[in-house]
């Protein structure tokens, strides 16, 4: 019943858990050729540092090929009280990675009697992405997350993004990934530099409003990115992380800010 290692992933391996590897390759049993397969994928996520901390937002659409699979996907996943992982790419692997991380952080805190350091959290995520390389190489399970957190030691929000191999980069102001990101990356750079107010100086409402505008822009040019679904009343997911922790922006607030910033009216009709 004892685990000699310190790490939750080691514990999982001891109990017989196997992270997806190339043994999951989808190929014809006799010819070995890859079978036609459209993996489920998620789309546009973005993160920015604003006045109080960091904001992370994502649209809600999941697609498989040119089919819209789901319009309520939540791609901004809570890992603990101060960190989130936002995902584009394969949600199946991404949710598994998020689940492992969430348990790893908790397990570490409870076992070691101290919070896992920020650099260790980044390292754990990086290792899991690297473990997923065989799936990414086959083009069916790449996960390219954004990790956002509030660094309580330094008193500021932090944003990290990754490539499919697990390399980790810190972005100073903002980042965006996913299929809709090319449509807004330049816009974000432009706005942050010449838009009159740097993202870092925006208050919360302005930052949320801006993120809704950007996601709307991405959905205009990327079919895999969803926008506000009027029929079902589904807004993008927007979360902030500040010194007082993680907060999910409620639908009512999103409705008001969507009306104000996206539709240019005081309140969006519900």
């Amino acid at each position, binding site marked *: 019943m004892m685990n000699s290692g310190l790490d939750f992933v080691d514990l*999982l391996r001891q109990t017989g858990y196997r992270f997806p590897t190339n043994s999951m390759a989808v190929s014809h049993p006799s010819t070995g050729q890859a079978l036609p397969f459209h993996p489920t994928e998620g789309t546009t996520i973005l993160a920015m540092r604003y006045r109080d901390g960091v904001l992370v937002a994502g649209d809600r659409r999941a697609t498989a090929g040119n089919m819209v699979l789901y319009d309520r996907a939540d791609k901004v996943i809570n890992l603990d009280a101060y960190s989130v992982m936002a995902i584009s790419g394969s949600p199946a692997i991404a949710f598994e990675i998020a689940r492992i991380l969430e348990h790893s952080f908790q397990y570490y805190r409870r076992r070691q009697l101290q919070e896992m350091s920020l650099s260790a959290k980044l390292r754990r995520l990086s290792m899991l992405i690297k473990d997923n390389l065989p799936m990414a190489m086959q083009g069916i399970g790449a996960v390219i997350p954004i990790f956002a957190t509030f660094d309580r030691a330094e008193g500021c929000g932090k944003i990290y993004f990754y490539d499919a191999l697990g390399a980790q980069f810190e972005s100073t102001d903002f980042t965006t990934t996913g299929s809709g990101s090319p449509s807004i990356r330049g816009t974000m750079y432009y706005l942050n530099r010449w838009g009159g107010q740097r993202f870092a100086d925006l208050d919360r409402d302005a930052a949320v409003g801006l993120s809704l505008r950007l996601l709307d822009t991405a959905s205009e040019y990327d079919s895999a990115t969803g926008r506000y679904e009027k029929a079902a009343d589904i807004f993008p997911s927007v979360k902030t992380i500040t010194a007082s922790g993680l907060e999910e922006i409620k639908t009512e607030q999103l409705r008001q800010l969507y009306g104000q910033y996206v539709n240019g009216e005081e309140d969006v009709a519900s």
Partner: protein
Amino acid sequence: MMLSDEPYRWAEVISNRRDYIEDQIRAGSPVVGVGYEDGVLLVTLGRGQQKLFEIYDRIALAAIGHSTDIEKMRQGALDMAHTIGFGYSEDDVTLRQIVYFGLGPAVKAGFDDIVRSPFLARVLLAEIDGHEGAQIFYTVDYDGAFFRSDGFAVVGGIPEADQVMMRVLDGCNTQTLSLTEALNVALKAWAMGRWVGLMENIPEKEELDRLAADIKAEDVLKRELQNLDVEAVVLQRSCVGKPKYRPLTSDEIAPALSVYQTD
């Protein structure tokens, strides 16, 4: 000749083992668990070494005994809870399974293996809002026997200490106690357990009851608080997020201590 061939010697060995363990842990600092309006509270006194631990979102552990043995049991409980929580779901992690299938059998195996050192510890586990109820406690004894109780529970170094402590808590309405009220009654229970644990010789039950009636828990606390600090944690229903475990701050503990720190 094998010990098991000789029933008398077997019984003697086990009896000696009990005496040895109780002797080792009886002077330790007891632990008290008591429900309050927003969850459960665990309290002990010590010299700064942590004795109260988070196991899972709604489960906490406290113990009296050898710190390394407590650590082994804590890690076993942690591993089990997290493996189940990951493979099934957070809601599937229950204190019952940790005790029935994890700690109970492991401690019993350690106690029965007479060529090895047993677990020198008695453990108290608490769970809020689980399948069995809102304020559930289990105690796991050094021989692997476990007991469930609702509302409150204690572990002292010896069974006599438990009895005296439980008498302090009997009749508490643990659904309505405020945090400070729960702290007050828990500290009094702790003091009585401490008093029993430090006795040279433990008298028969009637005599112990008679002596206990003359002891003021306040006096014991006043004395002990000169050398020891209060450690208290809660599993607090109103905590935001999934983990409900939270150590109390010294500001939260202070109101319950002011009466004992007159000088």
